[in-house]
Every structure is written in C-alpha cells, then in structure tokens.
C-alpha cells in the first residue's frame, strides 16, 4: 500500500511538471502580454517613472528573456512560494489566491459531500423500489434537477431568499462579517451562506448521481452472488447493504476523481451569479486579460487539487475492491 502511494506521488510530480510546462506555454501563446499593453499605454502618455517601474518588473520576472528562461524563473520562484504579481490587481498573486482557493476547496468538498449524502440513499431507495411511486417521484425530480441550469437555480434561490426570507443572498459572508477577522460568529455566518452555493452547484450532480447509483444497484442486484447471499438466509437489508451497495459504489468512486473538475468549472457561473469569492471568476478574468502569473498560479493549484482528488479516489477504490492490486 505504501509503495503504491509513493509510486502514485512520483507520477503526480511528473504530471504537475508537465502541466506547468504546457500551461505556461499556452498562457503565453496569444501574441502580446498584459505588460506590453500597459507599456504601450504608459508610453503614449509619456510618463517615465511608470515605464521604469515596468522595466523593473520585466527584469524581475525575466520577461525580456527567452520563454525557456522565463519558465525557469517562474517555476523556481513558484516552488519557493513566490507566485509572482498580478498585473491587473497589482498585488502579489499569493495574497489574491490564498483565501479564494480555500473557499473553492470548501465549496467543492461541500458540494461533493452534499451530492453523495443525498444521491446515494435516494439511489438505493429508488433501485430497491423500482417503478414504485417513490422511485417515480425521485426520477421526476432528478430529471428536473438535471435540466435546470445552475445560474437559473442560483437566481431562483436569490429571489426566494430576498423576497421571502428578507435575506440577501450572494457572497459567502454578511456585510457585517465581510472584513472582520475569522471568528466563531463569522464561521456560523459562513455556513449560513455556504449551503446555497452547495445546493446550487450540487443539484445537477446529485440528480446525475442518483441515476447512476440506481442503475448500478439494479445491475448488481441481478448478479448471481446476490442470489447466493439470499440463499444463505441473510435478511434483505444485509443483502442490499453488505453485498450489493459496496459493489455498486465502485463505479461511482471511479468517477470521483473526474467529478472534481466538473464541480470546479461548473461552479464558475454560479460563483459569478452569487458573487462568491472563489477561484472561478478570478481565473476567468485572469485568462481573459492575460494576467499570466495569476492565471498560471490558478492553473497549477487547480491541477494539484485535481491530482490529489484522483489519488484519493484511487486509494478508496483499492480499498473497496480487492481485485485492484497495489503493487
């Protein structure tokens, strides 16, 4: 098991190195950089100090050097924890990205937890009550959840919250707490706000997962070993939970690693609508305006998150399925 994890960690490192190289190339691919635009702008105004400032920046990040050298400077600083400056915001990327990444992880994990906690019991219920009224109702709700776009759901929640509960929805904190340092009250306030994006982002995933869980379990319930379990005289509850569910979860865990990017990218639109301080909207902006260090750092962190997600999924999979070898 240990060897398995070590080997996977080595693969992870290699993957991240490749991601950083390709990411860097792609971000630098469009002609011109944010600095070029800025320099042209400043030069047309004739200011000299700013131009000097920019020259300084250029030298610091080696923007006057070749792409290869630029990459090397960027990545070696990155490993040391210096992620560069954001040109649009004119602050270190580190300050910008830190809390946002935290909230993104929080919302993503929350969404995943919500999705699984809701979808799996409903999937089990639906499969064991196939075509009965309960199953049909859940199927209907599920398709509804799948077909409503996230931004619409977000708007609906905002309207309902604002009109009926007199509660402004959007953001992760109430105004009173927005700039306050972290405290217990602020944490409570955070959780009060958090469930809305989680429900909004998680609805489609939940609906999809219910279908998958239901289908898997129905498949498994037709397997011969389920009949064997019944023939032993086990109760239906034990047959379903001990013998069927564990096997039905298996394909779901396989998709776990892949569902993380879907949640992160799926939440971008929601985050814009709900005005959430997550990475999505900022990443989007950084890419659009070629804020290369900001975009590059996002890319790196999101990739690292993804790869960790995949590793966790693989470890879980190896744990539920003895047929997977660690060696």
């Amino acid at each position, binding site marked *: 098991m240990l060897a398995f994890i070590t080997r996977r960690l080595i693969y992870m490192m290699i993957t991240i190195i490749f991601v950083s190289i390709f990411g860097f190339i792609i971000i630098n691919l469009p002609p011109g950089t944010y600095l070029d635009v800025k320099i042209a702008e400043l030069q047309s105004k004739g200011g000299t100090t700013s131009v000097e400032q920019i020259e300084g920046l250029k030298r610091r990040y080696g923007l006057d050097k070749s792409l290869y050298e630029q990459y090397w400077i960027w990545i070696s600083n990155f490993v040391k924890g210096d992620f560069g400056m954001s040109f649009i915001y004119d602050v270190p990327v580190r300050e910008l990205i830190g809390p946002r990444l935290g909230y993104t992880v929080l919302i993503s994990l929350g969404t995943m937890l919500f999705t699984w906690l809701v979808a799996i019991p409903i999937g089990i219920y639906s499969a064991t009550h196939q075509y009965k009224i309960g199953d049909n109702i859940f199927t209907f709700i599920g398709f509804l959840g799948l077909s409503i776009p996230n931004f619409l759901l977000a708007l609906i929640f905002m309207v309902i919250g604002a009109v009926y509960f007199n509660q402004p929805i959007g953001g992760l904190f109430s105004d009173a707490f927005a700039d306050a340092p972290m405290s217990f009250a602020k944490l409570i306030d955070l959780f009060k706000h958090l469930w809305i994006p989680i429900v909004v982002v998680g609805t489609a995933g939940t609906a999809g997962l219910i279908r998958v869980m239901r289908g898997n379990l129905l498949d498994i319930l037709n397997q*011969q*070993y389920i009949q*064997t379990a019944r*023939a032993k*005289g*086990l109760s*239906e509850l034990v047959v379903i939970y001990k013998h069927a569910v564990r096997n039905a979860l298996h394909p779901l865990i396989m998709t776990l690693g892949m569902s993380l990017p879907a949640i992160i990218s799926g939440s971008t639109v929601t985050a814009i609508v709900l005005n959430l301080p997550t990475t999505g909207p900022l990443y989007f902006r950084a890419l659009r305006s070629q804020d290369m260090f900001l975009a590059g750092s996002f890319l790196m962190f999101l990739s690292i998150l993804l790869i960790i997600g995949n590793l966790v999924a693989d470890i879980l999979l190896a744990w*539920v399925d*003895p047929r997977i070898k660690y060696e």
Partner: protein
Amino acid sequence: MNKNILVEVKNLKTYFDTDDGLVKAVDNVCFNVKRDETVGFVGESGCGKSMTALSIMSLLPQPRGKIFGGTINYNADGNVIDITSLDPRAKEIRSIRGNDIAMIFQEPMTSLNPVYTVGEQIMESIRLHQKVSKKDAREKAIEMLKHVRISAPEKRIDEYPHELSGGMRQRIMIAIALSCEPKLLIADEPTTALDVTIEAQILNLMRELQDKFKMSIMIITHDLGVIGEMTDRVIVMYTGKIVEEASTDDIFYNPKHPYTQGLLRSIPILGQKKRLIPIEGSVPNLLCLPAGCYFAPRCPCAKDICRVKEPPNFMITEEHYCKCWLYDDVEEVTH
C-alpha cells in the same frame, strides 16, 4: 407425513404475472424428496426446473414470480412446515434457507461476492445460523475447505474469489452450502459451466460429501450423463409439468414417455458411433401452449386424443409414473 420424506411438493403452481399474460413456469407439479436420496431434474431449457427449485427456497424472481397454489411441506424432523405459507422475506424461511435447505448455482465465476474473502463468505453463513465465536467460525470454515478438498486451506481462506479457478469457486460454494449441514442440497446445474475433468471431480465430491453429511440432493441438469452418474430417481419436466418420474435405471432402460425417449436418443454414448437424433421442433412458448398434450406437436407417437385432451398421470409401477396417453390402459393417478 411419512418420516422418510423430507420434502413433499403438492400441486405447486409457480406463475409469472407478466405484461403479456400469466406464464405458468411450474404448473401443478407434485413430487417428493426422500431422506438421503438424490433426485435428478431434467428437461430442455425453460421447462421450469430452476423455478421449481427456487420455489422451495422461496427465492423466486421478484416482483413477478409468485406461488399461486399448492404446498411445499418441509419435514423438519417431525415438525412439518409449509414453505408456501411463509412470507419469503420473513425470519422463519430465512432460518430454513442456508441452514436446512442450501443451494448452489450454475455460474461459479459469479456466485461469490468479489469484495469479500472466501473465508468471510463461509463464516457469514456459519455465524448466521449458529451461535459461535468468530474464531470458532473460522476454524469451522477451514474445516469445510478441507472437506471440499481445497489445498492449503489456512492460506486460501483469506483469498478473494478472483484468485481462484472456476472449479475451486464451485468447491467454495459447496463449502458454504454445507457449512450448516443442511438436510437438502439443491444444485442447479452445478457443473454446466465447468470442463469435463473438473465436472467429474465436483460430482465425485458431492457424492462423497452426501455420505459424510447425510443429506438429500436435488440436482438439476440438462445432461443425462450427470443424471446417470449421480441420481437414484429422475423427474423429467416439460413446459412446467412433470411428464415422467421413475428410478434412474427405469429412465435409462425402460423410458415410457416419448419425450424422455427423445432426450435419451439425443445424448452421445461413449464408444458408440450412433448418430444423435435431436428431438424435432422446439419447446413451445409458455404463453401459447398447444391444446391437449403440450408435447403433441413434437411427438412421433401422437394420437388424436393427444391434440384435444391433456393426458393425466398414469402409474406404470409403484415407482414409475408417466403423463402420456400411450399408457391409458394402466391405472390413472393424481400423483
């Protein structure tokens, strides 16, 4: 109920209520299984062998399969229980299943749960029906592995099904089935999926364990070779009904029903280069059965009456019954 009879099935009707109509998978079937004997069930695919077995286990495919009539009396040492009267999910039948009546299936490759070790799966059965500690259950499981001739049982017990061959998995299934020392073992085509040498080993093992554990066996098969090898008595089924019942010797050397005769003509005999003659035509759909004798459209001996009136059961001898108009000169019986 006669002390010597373990299971008595009377007028069993197991039907499927499908959208296309009522499928009479098992229709008015009567038979007994005596203590310590081996009864074989033969017949072409779809004639109701498995459903007869699953009716006894009370494990019919849900939600459609249901017992519409008849009784299945299980004689638990003088205490007679009608299995058809029990709720298929309730405790009573579950304490019989796997404990008094055990079953093994055709597909050893898929009969074991891939995520539990064979030890866990054997011990599960033992601990369900016997109040023993985990340690004792494990010892018992190892002992069972020895009974089914698995080498290095102390090591094998912690292996997962995917590490074992098909033949070994079927041995494990037998170990699970016999772990609670059942009175009746139902084996639904236990060797159909295995190759010939492994088949012979498994059949030998079953016979040997039958002597050791003192149990009755109901063996279902397409293969008259298996019947000849294993059984004391044979029940021939066709379209949900029993058409002939006799001792194994009588079935082979004095078959009465044209269907049984047809089945016998269609098996290869070792060392004999006779051409095989399969039974002409195919099994009719259970939803549109012919009038009269269901075998009439395929029967080389069919008479006029065969096409209009269903034949009753005729008693050839005390032990030999045949559902065919050719024997209307002998005594007619309900069973």
